[in-house]
């Protein structure tokens, strides 16, 4: 915005519109600001790289191994503690599990399921919670208070019991886990989104749009949704590790995925049972992927929150 730039605009009627556009000063949008802040956040950027590697590992990991998740090596079985250790030479990178199966492939497969449950569960929660919360917040009044009272009631029911009950009653399957976890996790989301919508709805720029006659759906799309997006993105990122934790919890108890499929929780549970017998690698490998992933999601979520919702704005 130097004086030199400002000069041509002293005679606006003669200046051509296209010409004006060229000389405009570019503004910094909130998104651009956020991107700059996020990239400046070292912990978050390292987490992004690590997480990308883990995702690639879970998708393509199987292709560099000659084994699969269910074939049992009968030679090893019964002597896993001595003969089943990790080895690069025989291609069993992570060694064997207690049943003589290749642990590397099982970790790859478990990572895939845990990550999928995390992401899909969070997605279900975000979609349901956002729609529910935004509806309650935007409509307001009696509808809002009934909808939120219902959420209050659901929230004070211990969801883990319901989830376990559901898994026992409806039978254990991956779909059921997706649905069950997603459906119990949307409550928080809906509260947050509702609060945001409520405050956005009363902001004067929305009122200005109403006063201009902008139709309701366009207000929602143009003004409400973009301003909600930041919160939703941050919360969704923090929801993924929560979903992974929930799934791991259930699988740890043996109520989650079923053999031969596995997940981090199930692998951790098996590793815990055998650590007394010197088969620590069975705990160490899944634990490593589990901890690193959760760490990464938390740092990314924190980084996004700092970037998108800085207090000093």
């Amino acid at each position, binding site marked *: 915005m130097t004086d030199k730039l400002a000069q041509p605009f002293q005679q606006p009627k003669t200046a051509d519109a296209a010409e004006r556009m060229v000389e405009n000063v570019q503004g910094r949008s909130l998104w651009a600001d956020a991107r700059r802040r996020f990239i400046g956040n070292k912990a978050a950027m390292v987490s992004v790289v690590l997480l990308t590697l883990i995702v690639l590992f879970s998708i393509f990991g199987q292709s560099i191994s000659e084994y699969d998740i269910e074939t049992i090596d009968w030679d090893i079985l019964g002597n896993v503690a001595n003969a089943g250790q990790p080895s690069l030479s025989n291609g069993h990178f992570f060694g064997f599990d207690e049943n003589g199966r290749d642990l590397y492939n099982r970790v790859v497969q478990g990572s895939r399921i845990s990550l999928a449950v995390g992401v899909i569960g969070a997605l279900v929660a975000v979609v349901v919670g956002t729609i529910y919360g935004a509806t309650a917040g935007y409509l307001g009044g009696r509808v809002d208070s009934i909808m939120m009272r219902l959420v209050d009631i659901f929230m*004070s*029911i211990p969801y883990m019991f319901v989830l376990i*009950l559901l898994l026992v009653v409806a039978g254990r399957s991956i779909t059921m886990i997706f649905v069950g976890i997603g459906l119990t996790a949307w409550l928080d989301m809906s509260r947050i989104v509702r609060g945001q919508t409520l405050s956005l709805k009363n902001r004067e720029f929305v009122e200005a749009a109403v006063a201009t006659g902008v139709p309701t759906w366009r207000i929602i799309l143009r003004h409400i949704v973009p301003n909600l997006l930041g919160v939703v993105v941050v919360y969704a990122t923090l929801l993924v590790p929560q979903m992974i934790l929930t799934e791991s919890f259930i699988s740890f108890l043996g*109520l989650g995925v079923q053999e031969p499929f596995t997940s981090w929780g199930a692998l951790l549970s098996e590793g*815990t049972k055998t*650590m007394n017998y010197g088969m620590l690698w069975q*705990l160490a490998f899944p*634990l490593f992927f589990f901890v690193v992933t*959760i760490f990464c999601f*938390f740092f990314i979520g924190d980084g996004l929150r700092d970037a998108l919702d800085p207090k000093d704005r």
Partner: protein
Amino acid sequence: MLNFIIRRIAVAIPTLIILLIASFWLMQTAPGGPFTSERPLPAQVLANIEAKYGLDQPVYKQLWDYVVGILTQFDFGPSYKYKDRSVNDIIAQGFPVTLTYGVISFLVAIIVGGALGISAAIRQNSWLDYFAVGVTIGAQVLPNFVMAPILILVFTLWLGWLPGGGWNGGQWQHIIMPVIALSTSYMASIARLMRSSMLEVLRSNFIRTARAKGLPERTIIWRHALKPSLLPVVSYLGPAFVGMVTGSFIIDAIFGTGGIGYFYVNAAFNRDYAVMMGLTILLGSMTILFNMVVDILYAWIDPKIRL
């Protein structure tokens, strides 16, 4: 205040009813009855058994009898799996264990977490603050089912200081690791909440007024800042309680403490619906009750709510 309490109770009752109906309905829709095991029983035998447990009655009658049994005699009915034990027996056996380490864990989480959060906020940017922040970040990735095996690995297998499991009538050596495993992540969350809310309160206008009055820092923190900064922590107590109740499943599974979680998970494997439902309703009502207490506590701290 009394009005508030009564109104809060009025909200708790429908919640309980929903919980009751939902779990009862889930039981009813379960594929096959509890007695359709691998070996199909003769029709006559099945009918006899169902008559004994009242399963031949209409659903609403079953539900009614069940509720009346709980309310009048605290009777959760018989177990479907173990002919000689009632759900009450199971509660009597497991509940004291869970209660013992649960209460200790809860207190540890609140006291240690609260103290850590407050001191970190007061000494912002000191080594204590960095330590607290480090602990809270670390503890986020150490849920109880990760914490517990690590504890056993270190203190039982490597150092040999503590027994790796069992309850043994609640000897202190058997309580330490379950309490640490169960409380750490909640302790960390409480510390984090406490720190950030205390920092925020210390920046508020009424603290500026208190400083302008010449009050010593100690008085400012304990008399003016503590109560309002407790609000987010208090509202976290409800979720923390739920988390600890479910976390006790893991504790019982890993440490073999024999608490209520052990029976619940076993019942889930055995499709022993009567036990599952009884325990769900017991723990569920405790949660609902606890949430109510928390809300009342909240109102006690914040005079604006008390209307």
